[in-house]
């Protein structure tokens, strides 16, 4: 056995200013600088140790860049200590903290190093990596621990040492085949619940009794494998109990009087699926059945779209949580046999400027959460070669303890290429990454002697993703699909093999051998293998005759493949370990045994607010004039430019991004939606648009209004870039608090009712959706948040539209009437006013969107932008900014009942409105196409560098393009 420690240091001695700055924000001002060194540890199990020459070659080829780095090889490494001082003898101001991944956490660099070493002829090498931070400053041990914990290391996936860290190689414990019989016989309700709690099963009393009854009947005790399988299959995450439950719902007036009482037979069925069935669009290929929704794209191809959330993992380990969130939703696309072509992301964070002393214990600072989440999304999407093209970032105090990370993915599949029926005798094949204890009952995995810190967190341990393994899966599955090598496919997501095999074998039954599952390290018990949520795995049903062809493809794409068993045909689930059955039950009990829960819910309508805008303004302090308000809105973090985030995502890869996140001559104006042209379809002009609608601020005022407004926003954004309003499909994603509280569930019911009404009004189907419940921190729920994502067909990629103003002299039209709808608006938030009427569902919205689409197809519209947060004022400012052109408008021209105050036309957030820029020669034709719609000419594009507002020709205020740019872009403006 020989050991090496290799330290690779950048030659330039500049420290990392971001770490120093972050330390100062933590209140540790004595940190002067921080330098990073990469550490590589090698241990060789071969009899002959690698020669010094071999180690030098390893450094030259794989570890050291001779232009920028230098390396030091230390063998044998010095003993480890917990002394942080570089030279213990002097009272040096230089300290060392070393950080390494916990055992079991994916260390891609170490694996690549081991394989690279083998290519250089150095075999049996095991590698581990770490980072060494050299900190300069007068720092106490307490300071160092704090810096390590709050800045340099995340306890969920990493460990640290003050001074040299001990490398841990991928050794596991001995193989364990231990299976426990868990007797439930004779337990009373309390004891059953205690059993559920102790084993982290999350089953309620009714469910535990159902299981107890079943095993009483067959006359034996369940095994731990069986209990875990039932708990997983019946979990909220997998079966969506809340959305299927029967709900006794009471709608109350603001005064508390019951307005209506009724029974809802499942939210999903009554509102979401019901809307899809009611609108009955012929181009929907699959809704709510598969892992993703599918619509028709062209004669040859269909499009699949799915949006998932990864909130809790991202709260604990932002990078890994978001990273695996993208990985998971992309696998949902692979699981409908589609080739992924794009990603989306919508993020909700706490305030970035929160003073550290106000941060509640037990959570990461929102700035750290954002930094990690953004890096995690970029890392995974960029490495998969998928453009991340659409999204939003919302900031609100309500997300402090529980950020939201919505990850979306779109895929393209040839028509009829997705098989969904496994056949009797098909082999159960697992492809992709190896299985470890990832995501099993959290951090209990780390053994006590490895760390001095105690893990206090329960819940799933978070992994870091391995996008390159997933990239291999994408290529392999596409080739296997084209070769028609499988009869069914699904991903291993939550619940791991248990969920994948249990669902796929629901009708046929499955017989599976766990000892054949490739493991990252030995020592997993059968139930751990069965339930592991290790990333980057797919399960396929493969006819035996196709196995060798699939193996050839797997070899080519360097993806690990293993045959685990067969779909038996007897309707039973049989899980074996070394031939011995460790779980044996009929699929019918697993899938149909869950008692349908009943819940109660109520919703109290928001109190009407009779205070007029005038009185609110009279009360407001400080007094802000129109211009100051507009500047505040433009620099509000939710509205302001997200360029700093979005530019870290590759939005160009695959060469099909036609409308990008940023538009205009400076490529920095906000786009309403993205338009994409998939590789392989350049033979015709069809493309597709992706957009989103989300407004939790409005939800705080009125849930129903939030739902209808989110649908309108997603819809009008898609129309703005050229999507056909008769070919737009919707996705619903709910993030909510604990639904066992009747008030929270009631708000969810009311939101679903809004979803139904809006979808029917727009004639748009929901094709997929997901709910993430129990988003609470310390008993405080997040603001109930609905994300509506839209995918729409763009019939002609040459007839798309962008939001920036194009040419002086063009006319500016406002489509849609403006009402006094300031409830839940950005203006309300700035004024500290939680009143006012919220925006409602527009009358006949489809008629106006169809007309806009027709005008766009006729080439009559030069630019188009939707009105959302901040209303007309913000929307027009954004158009000026994107085009670096001025405009002169008269708000009195806008359609609406006599505006009692100029803030109404300026800042009201009425739905269904678009701004259109039209060239003078096209004016008549446009007015013809939009005749009998509420449309008004409100002004024109000007050469001046001012956006000039007037009311009845009396100037109100002017704002320069420069002021708009600097408010909206903030520090990013250069």
């Amino acid at each position, binding site marked *: 056995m020989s050991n090496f420690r290799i330290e690779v240091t950048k030659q330039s001695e500049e420290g990392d200013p971001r770490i120093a700055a972050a330390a100062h924000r933590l209140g540790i001002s004595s940190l002067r600088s921080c330098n990073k060194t990469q550490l590589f540890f090698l241990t060789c199990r071969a009899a002959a140790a690698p020669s010094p020459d071999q180690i030098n070659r390893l450094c030259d080829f794989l570890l050291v860049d001779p*232009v920028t780095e230098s390396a030091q090889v230390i063998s044998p490494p010095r003993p480890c200590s917990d002394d942080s001082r570089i030279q213990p003898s002097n009272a040096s101001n230089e300290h060392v903290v070393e950080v390494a991944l916990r055992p079991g956490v994916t260390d891609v660099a170490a694996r690549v*190093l081991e394989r690279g070493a083998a290519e250089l002829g150095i075999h049996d090498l095991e590698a581990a990596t770490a980072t060494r931070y050299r900190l300069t400053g007068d720092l106490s041990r307490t300071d160092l621990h704090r810096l390590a914990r709050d800045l340099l290391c995340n306890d969920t996936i990493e460990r640290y040492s003050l001074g040299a860290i001990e490398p841990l190689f991928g050794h596991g414990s001995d193989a364990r085949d231990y299976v426990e019989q868990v007797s439930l016989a004779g337990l009373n309700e309390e004891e059953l619940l205690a059993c559920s709690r102790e084993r982290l099963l999350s089953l309620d009393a009714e469910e535990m009794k159902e299981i107890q009854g079943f095993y009483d009947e067959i006359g034996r005790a369940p095994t731990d494998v069986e209990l875990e399988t039932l708990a997983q299959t019946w979990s909220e995450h997998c079966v969506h109990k809340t959305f299927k439950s029967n709900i006794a719902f009471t709608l109350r007036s603001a005064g508390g009087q019951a307005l209506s009482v009724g029974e809802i037979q499942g939210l999903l069925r009554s509102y979401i699926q019901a809307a899809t069935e009611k609108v009955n669009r012929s181009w929907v290929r699959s809704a709510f059945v598969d892992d993703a929704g599918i619509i028709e794209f062209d004669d040859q191809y269909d499009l699949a779209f799915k949006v998932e959330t990864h909130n809790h993992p991202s709260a604990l380990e932002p990078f890994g949580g978001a990273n695996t969130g993208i990985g998971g939703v992309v696998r949902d696309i692979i699981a409908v046999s589609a080739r992924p072509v794009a990603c989306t992301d919508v993020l909700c964070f706490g305030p970035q400027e929160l003073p550290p002393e106000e941060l509640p214990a037990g959570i990461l600072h929102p700035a750290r959460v954002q930094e990690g989440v953004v890096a995690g999304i970029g890392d995974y999407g960029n490495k998969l070669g998928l453009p991340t093209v659409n999204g939003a970032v919302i900031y609100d105090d309500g997300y402090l303890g529980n950020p939201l990370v919505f990850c979306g993915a779109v895929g393209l599949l040839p028509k009829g290429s997705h098989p969904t029926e496994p056949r009797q005798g098909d082999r159960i094949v697992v492809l992709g990454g190896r299985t470890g204890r990832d995501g099993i009952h959290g951090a209990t995995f780390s053994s006590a002697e490895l760390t001095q810190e105690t893990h206090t967190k329960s819940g799933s341990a978070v992994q870091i993703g391995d996008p390159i393994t997933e990239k291999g899966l994408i290529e392999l599955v596409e080739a296997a699909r084209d070769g028609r090598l499988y009869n069914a496919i699904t991903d291993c997501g939550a619940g791991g093999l248990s969920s994948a095999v249990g669902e796929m074998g629901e009708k046929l039954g499955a017989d599976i051998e766990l000892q054949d599952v490739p493991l990252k390290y030995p020592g997993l018990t059968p139930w751990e293998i069965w339930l592991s949520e290790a990333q980057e795995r797919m399960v396929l049903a493969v006819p035996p005759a196709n196995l060798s062809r699939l193996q050839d493809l797997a070899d080519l794409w360097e993806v690990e493949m293993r045959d685990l068993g067969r779909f038996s045909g007897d309707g039973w689930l049989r899980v074996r370990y070394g031939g011995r059955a460790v779980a044996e039950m009929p699929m019918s009990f697993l899938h149909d045994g869950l008692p349908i829960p009943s819940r109660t819910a109520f919703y109290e309508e928001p109190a009407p607010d009779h205070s007029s805008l005038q009185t609110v303004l009279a009360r407001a302090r400080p007094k802000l004039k129109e211009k100051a308000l507009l500047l505040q809105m433009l620099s509000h973090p939710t509205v302001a430019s997200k360029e700093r985030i979005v530019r870290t995502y590759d939005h160009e890869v695959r060469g099909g991004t036609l409308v990008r996140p940023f538009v205009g001559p400076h490529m920095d104006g906000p786009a309403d939606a993205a338009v994409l042209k998939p590789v392989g379809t350049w033979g015709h002009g069809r493309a597709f648009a992706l957009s989103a609608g989300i407004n939790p601020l409005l939800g705080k005022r009125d849930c129903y209004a939030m739902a209808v407004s989110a649908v309108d926003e997603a819809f009008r954004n898609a129309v703005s870039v050229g999507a056909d309003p008769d070919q737009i499909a919707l996705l619903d994603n709910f993030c909510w608090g604990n639904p066992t509280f009747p008030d929270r569930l009631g708000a969810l019911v009311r939101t679903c009712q809004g979803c139904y009404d809006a979808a029917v009004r727009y004639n748009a189907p929901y094709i997929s959706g997901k709910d993430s419940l129990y988003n609470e921190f310390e008993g405080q729920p997040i603001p109930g948040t609905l994300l509506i994502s839209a995918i729409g067909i763009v019939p002609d990629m040459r007839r798309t539209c962008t939001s920036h103003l194009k040419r002086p002299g063009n006319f500016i039209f406002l489509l849609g009437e403006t009402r006094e709808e300031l409830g839940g608006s950005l203006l309300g938030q700035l004024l500290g006013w939680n009143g006012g009427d919220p925006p409602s569902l527009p009358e006949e919205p489809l008629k106006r969107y169809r007309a806009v689409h027709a005008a766009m197809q006729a080439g009559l519209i030069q630019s188009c932008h939707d009105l959302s947060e901040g209303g007309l004022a913000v929307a027009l400012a954004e158009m000026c900014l994107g085009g670096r052109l001025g405009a002169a408008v008269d708000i009195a021209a806008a359609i609406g009942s006599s505006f009692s105050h100029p803030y109404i036309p300026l800042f009201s957030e009425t739905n269904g409105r678009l701004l259109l820029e039209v060239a003078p020669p096209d004016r008549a034709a446009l007015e013809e196409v939009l005749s009998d719609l509420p449309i008004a000419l409100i002004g024109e594009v000007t050469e001046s560098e001012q956006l000039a507002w007037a009311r009845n020709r009396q100037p109100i205020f002017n704002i320069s393009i420069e002021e708009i740019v600097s408010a909206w872009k903030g520090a990013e403006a250069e």
Partner: protein
Amino acid sequence: MNLPVLILHATGTNRDAEAARACELAGASPHIVHVNQLREGIRRFSDFGMLVLPGGFSYGDALGAGVRQALDLHVFFHEELTDFIQTGKPVLGICNGFQTLVKAGLLPGAADDGGRRSVARRDVTLTHNARDRFECRWVHLAVEQGARAGCLAQLREPVFCPVAHGEGNFQVSDNETLGRLEKDGLVAFRYVDSNGARADGRYPLNPNGSVADIAGICNRAGNVIGLMPHPEDHVDPIQNPLGDGKGLGLSLFRAMIASAGR
């Protein structure tokens, strides 16, 4: 017959489909070939008239961009690749492909034409962007007049195309190295503004902090060219975010493919 072009796919390559489309539009016959198919001898370098190393994250770039793929080239294809380059066939490395050629010592290459510089004695590199983050944005690129890559002379106007990378900062070990690159005509592309004037290190015109605004280089024989930006993402005017019809990256592919015929 159209020129057969080898588009090399290593585990983690992802801009191969666009590179193939660009070659096709430029009149060649692209073949995306996995490195394992070349290792097994199912396909050979010598079957092709041009080689493209496309963008992506080969092996996840886990040990630095292109490092592990460079090792592959060294261990498995040393002779075949040296022959390919020495016969003067065009080789284009884009983004991760460029990083790979540099880390493998094939760009700018040794003083003797077609030769390879020892990996340990490389004096140029592509390192982390000056802003230390991945960045995606469109840039203008000017062909360096007098570059050894003679085929580029026909590219008259600046190429407009996106960068999308975290490690595209071109650096040299010392000023002498830079002087030699310039004097020997090994600088092929520089970042410029929309009028073709040097970026002079100004962000975001020069998006990554590259020394002397260098976006791409070539070898002494002029047949091996590497650059960070993605001309394959601008092969149709509809992809141009400014919509002005200028700066097609397709012209680079046309020029290189034409040079293979000569």
